[in-house]
């Protein structure tokens, strides 16, 4: 069924977009990742303008992080105070991100910037995952778990001013640290349309020293707000949030994730991680090829709205 997207000003096949987001939802259900970093490149491959892809993907993340955070919240695994401090940084980050986005768009470099950043991110994550898998096969799980517990917060983090107490996480750290992590998440949400969990989660564990149990819930909690801020800013500044496209993505994501959770039982941790790494690296490779192979047409055109 062809459906007209009022903001993208084009008709797309609703089933195809649905399948695409269901596939990403499936992956996120199996592997427990957000999946925003896969949806945006997929939408761009599919012919949706990058600006619309990024902004609309941010709105889809509001829904998926909301659904995810609720589960953690019910189990009491959210440090709300920590989350809100992160949100304060995230809100500033998403505004800064919007201006970076607008500037890149004005310079005609937004497509390049999105591709380039995705290549770095996906290439980095994919490679790390592969390496980690090999290392953990060699060292067995005990070693990894030990490394987790032994991680210490570095001294310069402790020396920062504006210290705050976070009773839930049992931490006494500078508010600048969580706010700074939130800031990076906000910039990523605005520029790339991703929640940035893959960067925020390790940062919360290794830089902030939060208890791992609280990390996933708190990170999802703050992602709701940073992606919401990014969505509103994109709608206000760029008019690029397509709610019709967004709803198809949300629906596909929800359905896909349910099947993913069921399928997750059949995937062993190690196999799952390597599979996901291969998918991530394939998307990265496709972006690299697109960037370095001479385009069929050197020219491109775009309406100014």
């Amino acid at each position, binding site marked *: *069924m*062809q*459906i*007209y997207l*009022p*903001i993208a*000003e*084009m*008709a797309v096949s609703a089933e195809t977009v649905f399948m695409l987001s269901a596939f990403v939802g499936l992956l996120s259900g199996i592997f427990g990742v957000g999946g925003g970093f896969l949806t945006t490149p997929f939408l761009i491959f599919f012919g949706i303008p990058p600006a619309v892809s990024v902004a609309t993907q941010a*709105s*889809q993340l*509001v*829904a*998926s*992080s*909301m*659904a995810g955070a*609720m*589960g953690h919240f019910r189990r009491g695994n959210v440090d709300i105070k920590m989350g809100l401090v992160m949100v304060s940084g995230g809100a500033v980050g998403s505004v800064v991100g919007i201006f970076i986005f607008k500037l890149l768009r004005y310079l*005609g*470099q937004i*497509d*390049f910037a999105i591709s*380039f950043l995705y290549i770095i991110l996906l290439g980095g994550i994919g490679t790390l995952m592969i390496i980690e898998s090999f290392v953990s096969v060699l060292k067995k799980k005990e070693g990894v778990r030990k490394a987790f517990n032994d991680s210490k917060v570095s001294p310069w983090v402790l020396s920062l001013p504006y210290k705050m107490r976070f009773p839930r996480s049992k931490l006494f750290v500078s508010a600048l640290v969580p706010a700074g992590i939130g800031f990076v998440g906000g910039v990523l949400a605005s520029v790339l349309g991703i929640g940035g969990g893959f960067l925020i989660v390790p940062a919360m564990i290794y830089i902030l020293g939060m208890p791992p149990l609280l990390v996933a819930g708190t990170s999802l909690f703050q992602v*709701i707000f940073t992606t*919401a801020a990014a*969505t*509103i*800013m*994109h*709608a*206000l*500044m760029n*008019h690029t*949030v397509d*709610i*019709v496209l*967004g*709803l198809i993505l*949300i*629906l596909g994501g*929800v359905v896909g994730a*349910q099947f993913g959770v069921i399928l997750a039982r059949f995937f062993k941790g190690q196999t799952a991680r390597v599979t996901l790494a291969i998918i991530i690296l394939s998307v990265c490779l496709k972006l690299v090829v697109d*960037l*370095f*192979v*001479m*385009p069929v*047409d*050197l*020219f*491109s*055109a*775009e*309406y*100014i709205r």
Partner: protein
Amino acid sequence: MICCRCSLNSFSAIAFFFVLGVYVVSAFSEIAAAEPLQFDIADDYVEITTGFTGTTLSMIGYRKGHGDIILTLEGPPRSTVVRQKSQVFGAWVNRETLQFDNIPSYYDFALSVDDEKKLMSDALLKEYHVGLNALRMVPKEERVDEDTLRGFQSALLRYKQQHQLYSQKAGVIEFLGDNFFRVDFHLPAHVPAGNYTVRALLVGKGKVVYEDTQSLRVGLTGFSSDIYEFSRNHAFLYGVFCVLIACFAGWLSNVIVRRS
């Protein structure tokens, strides 16, 4: 109402000509004698709904005498930026940019002959915007050298044609008898919204003998239009609305999943 989307198999052909005849006679019985060229658009408001997949725009008309006919369809002017990629450290990156203001967002034309050059001089073709070479494409930037400009102009034309916004070649004006004619223009799903101009020219001996223009509106209607207007006129509220919908959808999916 004339349905022009149906293929003209034998039955529908008869029905079509009958309906057309009644329509044309009623439309032109009084004025046909007065004007040398008359035409009418079957539907002068094209509605883009959520299920819109493009449409066929049919025009019928009447000419007096034996002049040739040109019909042009021009979309609302829009500014377009054309960029040229070149290699930077092996990667293909946008480098050169030219901005073209007020070029037709959509263009299609039809002729009663196979080539517009047979009808008028290049200057006249340019004046009346007949044919793809006659479209005015002047960049905003001044002092652009000829070769560069030509490269960008042909790239713009190529882009428009690839996106089915400009026609590849002239459409054919079909004659039904000696003086009644009919043209079909096919509008794609992503046809730009706005006010269109349809111009009919009667040409004789290399000159425009008679000219008639009509306007046509292509607009989003219903849901699509509401969303578009909302996003433009109340951008902040629209953003908040999108976030609330997403929050609700997230909450709903969590509840449903927990129940099942």
